[in-house]
């Protein structure tokens, strides 16, 4: 799969055109192939369990593929796709909240709190030099720490530090102010640093800064 497609006029950093939009229009097959990993990563890190992640992935993907003809290119394709995933996730969480509120006292439906992934992490065979050196154990620690963050902070830090989006793109995708984005990222990193203190203070285990 194509990785690291860059935003901004749908062109990569070296001026290469996004393969998903070679002819000036987004092609569904190419978009599905190029952005499936991005959508999947976001869904996995935003949802509370695998079933919910799958639902979120399907909702988002269907909207993306069906909405492609109306994509006008005002924002980058990546930002537009992230916006759709985030909106689907927001609707889903809103629906769960409403459902829980309407349930009789004591009855629970679905995961009761965020960060409720059950079972081991699914295998991930994606290539990449960093992945090759980051052990499974450490990766699981990082993912667990991410799930321990409040939803908004987790979203902001994932978009920034994992997806490499700029503050402005994050603000557009999440529908918030840049100042809010900055503070969420700052708080998220501070919390993660505490949660991963042993890894952060332990140099030379494979991840160089």
């Amino acid at each position, binding site marked *: 799969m194509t990785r690291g497609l860059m935003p901004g006029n749908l062109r990569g950093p070296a001026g290469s055109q996004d393969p998903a939009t070679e002819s000036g229009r987004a092609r569904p097959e190419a978009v599905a192939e190029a952005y499936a990993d991005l959508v999947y990563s976001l869904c996995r890190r935003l949802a509370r369990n695998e079933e919910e992640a799958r639902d979120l992935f399907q909702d988002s993907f269907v909207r993306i593929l069906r909405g492609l003809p109306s994509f006008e290119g005002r924002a980058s394709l990546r930002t537009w796709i992230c916006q759709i995933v985030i909106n689907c996730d927001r609707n889903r969480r809103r629906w769960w909240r409403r459902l829980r509120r309407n349930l009789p006292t004591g009855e629970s439906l679905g995961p009761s709190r965020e960060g409720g992934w059950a079972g081991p992490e699914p295998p*991930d065979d994606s290539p990449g030099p960093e992945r090759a050196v980051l052990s499974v154990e450490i990766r699981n620690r990082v993912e667990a720490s991410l799930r321990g963050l409040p939803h908004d902070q987790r979203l902001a830090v994932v978009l920034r530090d994992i997806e490499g989006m700029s503050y402005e793109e994050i603000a557009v995708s999440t529908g918030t102010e840049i100042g809010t984005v900055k503070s969420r990222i700052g708080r998220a990193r501070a919390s993660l640093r505490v949660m991963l203190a042993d890894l952060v203070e332990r140099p030379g285990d494979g991840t160089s800064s």
Partner: protein
Amino acid sequence: MTPRCAAARAGLGELLDGELSEDRARELEEHLRSCSDCRIERAGLLRTRSLLAAAGRLRAPADWIRDAVRLAEGQVPPAAPRHNRRLHDRPWVLSSIAAAAILSFVMIALRIFDTGRTPPASPPPGAPSQETVRKSLPLNDAKPDAPPNEAAPRALPHAVDESASSKKVILDRIAGKDLAAPPQAEGSTPSSIASRNEDNLPGPAPPPPVERIAFSQIHFSSQALAKDRGVVLRRDSDQMAVRAPAAQEAPRWVRIRVLLDSFSRVLSARGAEGPVDREAADLISRLPGATIDLSTREPANPSASSPSSSVREKALAPAAPPAPREIIIEFQLPPGS
């Protein structure tokens, strides 16, 4: 920690992200050169960022993508069970769906029944009674000089007394048995309609006809369904047709039993001869939702016109009826798979 350190640490994240203005960044860098505590803070932050970056993007499972693409194209419901909140909230939707399903079944049955009944006409003078016709008209002897698979199925609906066996005719037609029944060889013992009607015991179902289908006759819903197969795709208006790559090794054929709807779409598929290997199972999993083009048959000699896809022989089955039916497809796997 001095106030300058506090201000510097508040801006460290933005500095590392390259989101600070030039002046502010220069100012911070200057402070960092002189403050070891803030340098340690920056190192910790850098390390946190690199841990996150190294966690990286996850790879989407192929079946998630495939299901989502199918769903987007509105062809096949997703394989995984989904929590249907709307049905959960509105039980009347379920009863409406059930009523609609029953109504459609009745309408289909009536339509099939209509096509199978004889138009009411008074018998010509001197013609034998209906009972006589039924007893003297064997299943395969309606036209002794005609090919057996033309005579047998067409003679059945016109000869059957609807009051006696309409239910059986309907059920047989829905199951496609009238077409699925293999034509009897000439000279075999003719069985009369009357004796057929009396046979109420459920016997073993006759095997469905076998068709040999080339890749070019299977229309998948999208590229995603076939991309892992090493299969070459070509765009044909809105549909993706699939054909095998140029053959260098002998192609492999696998028999798959498929249930087709009236539009030749695959409703379900399974191995025709028991368990199948991984490649065939993979192919079977992709078939539901695909359309099999039975109208445009490939030539009998594939190498002459289509070097990359081939049908070894023409299909044996009669023309597709407008009802769900089950056939066996001999499906060509790509060479080297």
